[in-house]
């Protein structure tokens, strides 16, 4: 993927671009709002990572606003030290697609970029989802593993649906909290892990192939592919 990083802090920019390159993406870096806006309108990017507070007169939200007005719908992830819920809402209203507060774990950023870049390909009118032999009927809200029907609580269904919609991508605990429970804070205990292990019990127990796996230091991923051998 081709990713534009608009970030004025040199160290932070190096950290992000280096990590993205290691994950197999190509990156461009702009260190102020003017260059950022120029690059964003002149080059096609898959995702833009945008800092909010930038030197010069043009800040991140202004760039996003300008892009959206110019009918440019490149997915934008706002990366900002302003982490309040209010600020998040402001960022998303301005046209950002996702919001991540600094400081952040790189795995979280990578996972969110992955989700963003594929969002456009999703079909909202889909009625069924599949990963390997796991099938979800979105209309009847039923789940099968092969021929075995799986009974899920409503929230478990939502959790599985979110994971399957992002099959093959890493989904972090924060993303699950935000998207499945709509919780915008960090519970002190590992409650999400318990939900996942319960879900894993239901879909992967006694199965030869494990679909739902934990990605160390990042989150979870549901995938039919076997985990890469490291």
């Amino acid at each position: 993927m081709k990713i534009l990083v608009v970030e004025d802090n040199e160290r932070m920019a190096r950290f992000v671009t280096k990590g993205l390159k290691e994950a197999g993406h190509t990156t461009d870096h702009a260190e102020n709002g003017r260059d950022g806006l120029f690059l964003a309108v002149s080059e096609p990017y898959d995702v833009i990572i945008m800092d909010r507070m930038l030197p010069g007169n043009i800040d991140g939200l202004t760039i996003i606003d300008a892009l959206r007005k110019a009918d440019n719908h490149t997915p934008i992830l706002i990366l900002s030290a302003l982490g309040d819920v209010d600020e998040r809402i402001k960022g998303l209203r301005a046209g950002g697609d996702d919001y991540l507060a600094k400081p952040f774990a790189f795995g979280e950023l990578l996972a969110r970029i992955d989700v963003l870049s594929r969002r456009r390909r999703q079909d909202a009118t889909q009625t069924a989802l599949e990963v390997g032999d796991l099938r979800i009927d979105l209309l009847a809200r039923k789940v099968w593993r092969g021929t075995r029907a799986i009974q899920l609580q409503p929230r478990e269904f939502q959790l599985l649906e979110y994971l399957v919609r992002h099959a093959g991508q890493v989904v972090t605990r924060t993303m699950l909290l935000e998207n499945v429970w709509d919780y915008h804070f960090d519970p002190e205990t590992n409650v999400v892990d318990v939900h996942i292990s319960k879900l894993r019990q239901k879909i992967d127990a006694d199965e030869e192939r494990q679909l739902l796996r934990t990605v160390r230091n990042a989150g979870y991923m549901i995938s039919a592919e076997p985990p890469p051998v490291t």
Partner: protein
Amino acid sequence: MTRVIRSSAVTLATGYVLLAFTALVLFAAPLLYAWQETIKDFRFEILQEDSQRLAHVFDLRGPAGLKAFIDERVGMQIAGERMLLLSDAAGRPLAGNLPAWPQSIPAHAGSYTLPVTLDGRHSMVAMVLATLPGGYRLLVGRDVDRFAPIERRFWYGLAGAVAVLTVAGLIGALLIRRALLARIQSTQQTVAAIMRGDLSHRLEVRSSGDELDTLAQTINRLLEQIEQLVHGIANVSNSIAHDLRTPLAELRSRLEELALTRPPVGETFAEIDAAVADVDGVIRIFNALLRLAEIDAGLRRSNFVETDLGELVAKAVEFYLPAAELKGLSLTLRDAGPTGARCDPVLLAQAINNLIDNSLKFVAPGGHVELEVERLAQGLVAVTVADDGPGIPEGDRPKAAQRFFRGDASRGTPGVGLGLSLVEAIARLHGGSLELADNHPGLIARMIIERGTAAVAGDPRHPRINPDRPRRDAEVTA
């Protein structure tokens, strides 16, 4: 400061003296004028009568008779008190106590006040001139200067009064200044001591209850509030210093050890992971503190929306149920159905989750955690989390909601000691309070908030000025 006081006291005194002086003059001037006029009229009246009597004598006895009459009177009288002069038509004196017809005396008959030189003495003389038949002229006069000492005494009296007033004014100014300076100096000393950092000082309040005392009392109340705030800040700063320093010290020693010992790669990465976890811990504390500050500032009132509290609690219970089951606890909700409230759902969700989180952490396997949503009187609603865990000792309960407070039972559990203070702050933002009670055994944590229907909520843009004082009625119902 001293100069201002001095000048203000002296200005005040000078003003009063001037005012008194003006009043005195306003009183004395017309009096003096009236007095002088009356004496003058009276004097001329007497002279006129005298002159007429002499003219009558002249009519009866002729010039020689009048001359004899005048000579007789002059011989009996004290010189100077009464001036008499009779002259013939040519102006030659015939009788009287004046040696000659004085110069500069007008020829016409009438009343005059003129300077006259008599025996080498100049004096003002009031006189009546009369022309008698046959061209004889008669002068009857009186020395005006004889009254000068009386007038002088009047002026001396006035000057004396002014002097007394001035001295009294100056003494008054000095006394006022001394009293004022004493009060101001004591205030200054107190304020200086406070500015040096000792906030326990208070202004002196006398029993007199005057305006300065009222002012001192007001300032003392202000100082009390400032002292409380400063203590609060100091407590928080100490707690922050302690609770952030601990993980930071751990992190530092971990990294330093890593740099010194240079362990094998696998071990190094494990240490780095641990270091990142340390940093995450610090970030979590920061986030909690920031959110607390944000709530305390009352900024979040703008996010209040109509929310079903019952649903919020049910969702939280459902969220924690797997974790509770895993620990072997029962987590139940006594369902009260939909309970609408006007609140910040994000914050309330966090508060409810913190309460459940807290209970799950402390209750031993096999224990129970029960939640309840109840509507109370006076537009209040309570979310209660009751458990049968170790509870909080009665002495610790008031402190439990303080920032960074961690009871003995919490040693060795995760968390930074901000959970309950966050709940308390959120409850306060919603016009309520957090109450902790004994569940025999265990803890009952009861978060009370206003349901905030239009009448109760007030203007969300104007949060209550003093969020530190929870509404009293919230406690009456508990």
